[in-house]
């Protein structure tokens, strides 16, 4: 169940971080950096639209579906194609973590991965005193740790 790519966007939808991982038989081709921005902001937009379509009250009934983090109640969570899946999750502060994975990736497993990535973001991005909020993430430590999390999953 490999992870192909990760995107992290801020609450305003700007792309903070993007990385493609080296995976055997990766169905997703490399894009240029402008396309990454387009993909991220489009997904952010669709997420926001889907949230607007569902009034808050209906979200409450639907809440029985189990997600460990209670955020992202009404927004877009997943897109499936025959080749890959896109999982989205949003934290209470509005940070969105978007993962492109193989189609056999399950909801439970992805929740665990989200939690780990969020933890890495807190530790190695937010606690880096020289990182400025809402700016692109260029932290070597974050890169390394993220890679090791993904490598463990992709094995």
């Amino acid at each position, binding site marked *: 169940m490999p992870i192909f790519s990760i995107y992290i966007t801020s*609450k305003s939808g700007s792309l903070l971080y993007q990385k493609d991982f080296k995976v055997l038989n990766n169905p997703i081709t490399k894009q240029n950096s402008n396309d990454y921005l387009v993909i991220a902001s489009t997904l952010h937009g669709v*997420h*926001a639209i*889907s*949230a*607007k379509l569902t009034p*808050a009250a209906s*979200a409450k009934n639907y809440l029985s579906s189990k997600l*460990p*983090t*209670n*955020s*992202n*109640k*009404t*927004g*877009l969570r997943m897109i499936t194609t025959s080749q890959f899946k896109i999982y989205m999750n*949003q*934290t*209470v*502060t*509005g*940070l969105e973590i978007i993962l492109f994975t193989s189609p056999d990736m399950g909801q439970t497993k992805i929740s665990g991965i989200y*939690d780990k990535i*969020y*933890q890495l*973001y*807190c*530790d190695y991005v*937010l*606690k880096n005193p020289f990182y400025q*909020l809402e700016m692109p993430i260029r932290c070597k430590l974050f890169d390394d740790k993220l890679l090791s999390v993904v490598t463990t999953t992709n094995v």
Partner: protein
Amino acid sequence: MSKQIKQLGDDIWKTKVEKVNSELFTLTYGSIVSQLCKDLNFNYEAVNNQLFKMGYNIGIRLIDEFLQKTQLSRCTNFRETAEIVSKIGFKIFLNITPIITNWSADSKTFSLILNDNPLADFVELPDDGKALKELWYSNILCGVLKGALEMVQLDCEVVFLNDVLRGDESTEIRVKLIQILKDEVPAGDE
């Protein structure tokens, strides 16, 4: 509900939080404040502001760590927020649980009474005639609260009312909800 919150705070404190020597922590904070006082020529008003700003910058980052560790979602009302700030927030970061009291009638303002303030363990304010009246030694806490609450769209005013360091009977932080920043609630999380 209140018990569950307390339990959650205790569990996280025991299992998920890195601990640091409390004296190192207290002395580090002390040296920051005293250096600020020197740098700003003992203009305590300016020191208060500077501490608040530093706290604010900590708060807007710390909130994500808090949410990641607690896995909590948005509070349903401000009373719940108060409980969580005291029993989980203060608990996991400072290992204290301030008492929540003095609710205003509209449930928008409350006080946190800190019986034990780890920032001020060995502190006596300088005897220069104005520090006792002007300096809020632990003002960084107000900034942290302000920053953290603002990131979850609660625009609050956070100020010290009393401090035992000044000779008051208790250490009291007043938190007032000004507004909920509706426009900034992230889509998909209402």
